[in-house]
């Protein structure tokens, strides 16, 4: 029962992550989506599996995978953002329809 609840939470966050990857135009907003929403989906699916298989030795292995992912996914996001910033992608894009729609509507 609890594992089904965590699986439903993971569905919502998976769908939001894919929509956000197509909705945003700047790369830094996409990195935000990848860093936060995908981590929540990973966390909830592994918690669902832990509640489903009970207390065994494999539970420890699942928690090791979760700990490894929680350490390395922010590192990957930080490396990608730093690499894009050093190589000259601007922080604020001029032609950005996802954040400029209010100015277009007023004018």
């Amino acid at each position: 029962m609890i594992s089904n609840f965590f699986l439903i939470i993971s569905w919502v966050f998976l769908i939001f992550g894919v929509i956000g990857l197509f909705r945003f135009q700047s790369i830094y907003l996409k990195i935000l989506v990848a860093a936060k929403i995908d981590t929540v989906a990973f966390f909830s699916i592994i918690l669902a599996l832990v509640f489903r298989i009970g207390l065994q030795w494999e539970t420890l292995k699942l928690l090791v995978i979760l700990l490894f992912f929680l350490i390395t996914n922010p590192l990957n996001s930080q490396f990608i953002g730093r690499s894009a910033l050093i190589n000259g992608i601007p922080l604020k894009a001029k032609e950005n329809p996802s954040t400029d729609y209010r100015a277009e509507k007023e004018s």
Partner: protein
Amino acid sequence: MIDFTIFLLLLAIGVISIKFIFSPTIWERILALNLISGKTVLLLLLIGLQRDNFFFLDIALTFSIVGFLAVTLITRFLMEGGRQK
């Protein structure tokens, strides 16, 4: 429930693969690669639970290590200037 989660993960991998192929800059492609590697680990875990075969957990741990090394090394290579240096 687990079957629908596997279906949703496969759909997400397919949609992100479109983003991986048709992206303008290389950093968006690496970002899509990062997402695909994370979802592949989840897919291996769910398939291992569905078939009651816990050896899939070791394969998932190996996949997570390989994905982390791939993204880190490619971004460090691009941070130095890439092939144009």
